[in-house]
């Protein structure tokens, strides 16, 4: 089963990945997990007046794609969805865990939201586990060990997206 090949792919890959996972992100962990609201800060937007185009390279159906640094699940890109949309007939989970991944195309770190798509059973395609910065459930903001089909009509997990929310604080 490719499920277990993945485990080994993953191990070798992980040993190669050493991007630090620290930074602003985690300072808010306790607050977040405590359920406290946190202030709404401005979200980075691409400067559309620049002639140059944003760079986002890589195969979004490959576990090695940069946005998947903290993922653990089936890639919606292989399930009838895309890297940031859900497959037909599923429902996107409104709450999820966050990763900070570096885009090799522009050297920036981005905050990635791994919203699960729910309401159909496991897609079963392109299982990908990278776990960089993953923590046990006591760090709800950084854990991929739980089924994030929370706040959805159905609790059934289908696949995971990797959606750019914005540029993370640089350190």
């Amino acid at each position: 089963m490719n499920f277990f090949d993945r485990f080994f792919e993953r191990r070798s890959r992980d040993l190669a990945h050493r991007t630090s996972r620290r930074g602003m992100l985690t300072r808010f962990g306790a607050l977040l997990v405590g359920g406290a609201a946190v202030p709404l800060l401005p979200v980075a937007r691409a400067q559309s007046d620049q002639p140059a185009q944003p760079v986002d390279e890589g195969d979004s159906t490959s576990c090695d794609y940069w946005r998947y640094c903290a993922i653990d699940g089936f890639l919606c890109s292989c399930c009838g969805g895309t890297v940031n949309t859900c497959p037909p007939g599923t429902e996107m989970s409104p709450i999820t865990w966050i990763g900070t991944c570096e885009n090799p195309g522009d050297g920036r770190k981005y905050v990635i939201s791994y919203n699960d798509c729910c309401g159909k059973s496991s897609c079963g395609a392109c299982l990908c586990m990278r776990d960089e910065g993953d923590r046990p459930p006591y760090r709800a903001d950084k854990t991929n060990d739980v089924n994030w089909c929370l706040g959805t009509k159905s609790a059934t997990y289908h696949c995971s997206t990797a959606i750019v929310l914005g540029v993370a604080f640089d350190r």
Partner: protein
Amino acid sequence: MPQFRTVFLIASSFITSQVCAQDAPPALAPEPLGIIETLPAQYPENWFIVHDASFFHMSDGKVYILDVTAKTLGEQFKGMFNSSLIGNLAQSPARGEIYSTETFHTRGQRGDRIDLLTIWDSATLSPVGEVMLPKGKRFMGIPQRNAVTLINDGKWLAIANFSPATSATIVDLDSREILSEVGTPGCVMTYPTGPRGFSALCPDGRFFSTQLAEDGSVAQQERSEVFFDSDTTPIFDRAATIDGIAYFPSFAGLIHPVDLRGAVASVGEAWPMATGEEAAENWAPSGVAIIDKDDLGRFYLLMHSGAADGTHGGGGPEVWVFDPATKSRVQRIALQSWGLSIAVSRGSEPLLLVTNPEAMSLEVYDARSGEFQQTITGFGQETPLLATGAQ
């Protein structure tokens, strides 16, 4: 979707207005949340509807929509929906709907049981309706092309029952209500027959044909002549229908043409699939989905040699293609590996899809040249044993 404020609240606190080197490209824009993909209401001719009844996890059967000509899994996998406890499927491209019989228990594998017809929208792969079926009756077995069939010009669905008492439930697809339950004593399946009816196959070696009135009540029921002996000369209950003639293969390798255009099934003269040396080698059909047809007027059979008592379900190494007009084989395709089920796509450039039981992968062939195209696997399949060319 207001609920998505949550994730912004969480995430936005970690986000900064960007500060970056002059020479760097602009940053990626934040992306919207909550977007769900859709499909066309009518599917391209190179797509298949693949039913995986998941024999090791039957309450979690899966129906995959696959583009078998695409080169990557991401492009091949168009979507899926679930079908619980070995359902049976039918598609209506005219209505943009896919129909699936399902069975649920209130506690998963236990508890109170309900039987349903679920109506799926082909474009959104969402359930848009359901019809409660009589409890504990609908045919539940190895998935079958003739257990749930469109009749009456696609206005009605005929659902085969087996409890083991046999009958058919007639559903009106406009009102999504049951019109009637038609008794077919001892005879099973629902092969569309005549203007507004169906035939069922009987243990005494003939058909039991029913024509229905406009309200779904029985207008006429008649048995065909006996044409096989279910002990000594059994036929398969799986057929390919071309221009109203259904071609039923026998265990021994004969083709029985059955005219289903009239009110009563009319059985024609049988002819052999194998002749000469091949006949001596006992070539006969074997597998799960052993037969299908294309839109060029040809039908396909999964074949094995050395046929004997008990070998009719194990699959085979070849697919034979026949032209019913000339009653002759027009093609012989040696499969790359063993086949357990076959399906053929619609249109002028048909594709042959073969389920390989070793890996449960799907192998794609050009149905005209017999040339192997590619293998499709790794889509989470367990036992994808009944594919159908999408419409």
